[in-house]
């Protein structure tokens, strides 16, 4: 399995698409940096409440956890590019027919799935860590307002967001494996990563609230408030709290302990589910390529 893992890494490193994604990450990093300058250095005297909404996390000043969230979560190009990377990693050997050359050598096809998933996790983790550290480093050097404070929130945000990111991408990995086509995986992956699915999930929340006779105002605040950083919740059941795309896109470091634990459990559950489905598919289905 380690050989297969190394092969996927080699292939990803040599692929043209990886280089294109690298360039796009660089471009979006520069754009995000300019936006971050406008928001955090605040040359236009933007009111504090508005700034909180723009940053997506309530808090004081230009501190690491807000910078981290701003670069990797608030500005969706990062997650969108990681989604594209995952889809291309999964499909490149299928679309090229390459998989037929090597797939047969394993009786236990799940090894193949785990090798590819591991390659995806290692690649994405490397990019995530590098992107996060770079964003912190550059802002620490360039922004006068930068303060090295609230590090506990930074570590919390860094770790939980990473777990959620891997869960979301594992789900994309599963969907792409199911379709075995870049277009199918890409469309659904991007719908999830860009937040388009959130609208449906929020609508479902309201429908469920209506059916079960809940206060619709509470339901609306619960389900929509998260997208603009409102943390107060009614505590009622909301379907969107268990949808990984919504959990990822609405997560913020100021979440309370219970919500943070729920987010982590949801991420682990989705990761396990997606991997189980991939394994099942690999064991049951003929190689279609």
């Amino acid at each position: 399995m380690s050989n297969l893992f190394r092969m996927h890494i080699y292939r990803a490193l040599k692929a043209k698409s990886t280089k294109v994604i690298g360039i796009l990450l660089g471009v979006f990093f520069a754009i995000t940096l300019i936006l971050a300058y406008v928001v955090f250095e605040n040359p236009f005297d933007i009111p504090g409440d508005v700034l909180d909404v723009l940053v997506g996390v309530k808090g004081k000043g230009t501190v690491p956890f807000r910078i981290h969230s701003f670069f990797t979560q608030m500005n969706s190009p990062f997650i969108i590019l990681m989604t594209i990377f995952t889809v291309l990693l999964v499909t490149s050997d299928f679309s090229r027919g390459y998989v037929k050359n090597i797939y047969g050598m394993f009786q236990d096809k799940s090894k193949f799935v785990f090798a590819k998933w591991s390659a995806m996790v290692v690649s994405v983790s490397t990019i995530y860590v590098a992107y996060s550290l770079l964003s912190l480093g550059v802002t620490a050097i360039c922004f006068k307002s930068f303060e090295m404070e609230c590090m506990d929130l930074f570590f919390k945000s860094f770790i939980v967001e990473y777990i959620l990111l891997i869960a979301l991408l594992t789900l994309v990995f599963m969907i792409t494996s199911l379709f075995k086509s870049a277009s199918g995986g890409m469309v659904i992956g991007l719908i999830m990563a860009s937040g388009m699915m959130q609208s449906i999930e929020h609508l479902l929340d309201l429908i469920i609230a209506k059916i079960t006779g809940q206060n619709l105002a509470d339901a609306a605040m619960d389900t929509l408030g998260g997208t603009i950083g409102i943390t107060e919740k009614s505590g009622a059941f909301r379907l969107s709290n268990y949808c990984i795309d919504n959990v990822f896109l609405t997560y913020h470091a100021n979440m309370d302990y219970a919500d943070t634990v729920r987010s982590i459990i949801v991420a682990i559950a989705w990761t396990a589910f997606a991997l189980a489905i991939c394994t099942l598919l690999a064991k049951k289905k003929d190689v279609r390529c």
Partner: protein
Amino acid sequence: MGYILTTDNITKKFKYKVAVNQVSIHVERGEVYGLIGKNGAGKTTLLKMIANLSFPTSGSYTLHGENGESQQEMMKRIGVLIEDPGIFPNLSAMKNLKAKAIAYGIKNDNYLVELLQFVGLADVGEKPVKNFSLGMRQRLGIALAMVNSPELLLLDEPINGLDPQGIAEIRGVIHRLCTELHTTVIISSHILEELSKVASRYGIIHDGRLIDELTKEELNARCTPHIFIRAKDPAQTSAALQKIGVTQYEFREDHFEINERLDQIAELNIQLARENVQITELRLEGQSLEEYYFRLTGGNINV
């Protein structure tokens, strides 16, 4: 020699079709086995099952006499080129080979250079594969299938779409695989003329069923040479043949096939002329693999 691969009533059913129906083939070590059949006959599905890419609905196959599906190590010694060479177009030939070598834990780059030399791609350098001709891609596909030094190589339609030079190059590679590396090759094709040049045993598949399996020698024996005669008046010709003592002949559509006096074709011509038979065509011919196939499958030209 012994069989390296046998299938035992192997069957693959899809929702609306039985793609492979109780096929039992026997492949000897070191031979080139030609799998013949028209498009959709079940050749690729059969190869996919042998390559462990598709699960048989019923039946089984054995590798070295052991059940194929339990032969993890043997599976690693099968090389596969099915339908598509499976290459990354932006990478060079060497990098394509390197990617697959890593999957098998092979670290010797010199071996990969030798492989490129073997298939005649030693001088392509860093040229991206997308700039290769179809023939070069197919040869790279064979090199990719050989990375793990396979004992059994499965080649599905490797000469499809190639020009005559490309076909000759692939034929040369297969010949060298067999003679120099003693690799057993199963090659499927619907270009029967080419297959007859490289294979030493044939399996003929039609509508998912194996309708014949024979060696080259058996094929030659069945494709007996005969004298082909076409004349203006078949009734008069038939009478003349009987008069001069020819008994082993058959009338087929518009011509006669005579299975005796094969070394006396000139004398036969003179005798028939004396009987005033107006011959329009006279030649000695043998049945080709293609003709044999048509006869066996009912003459479908779509092969």
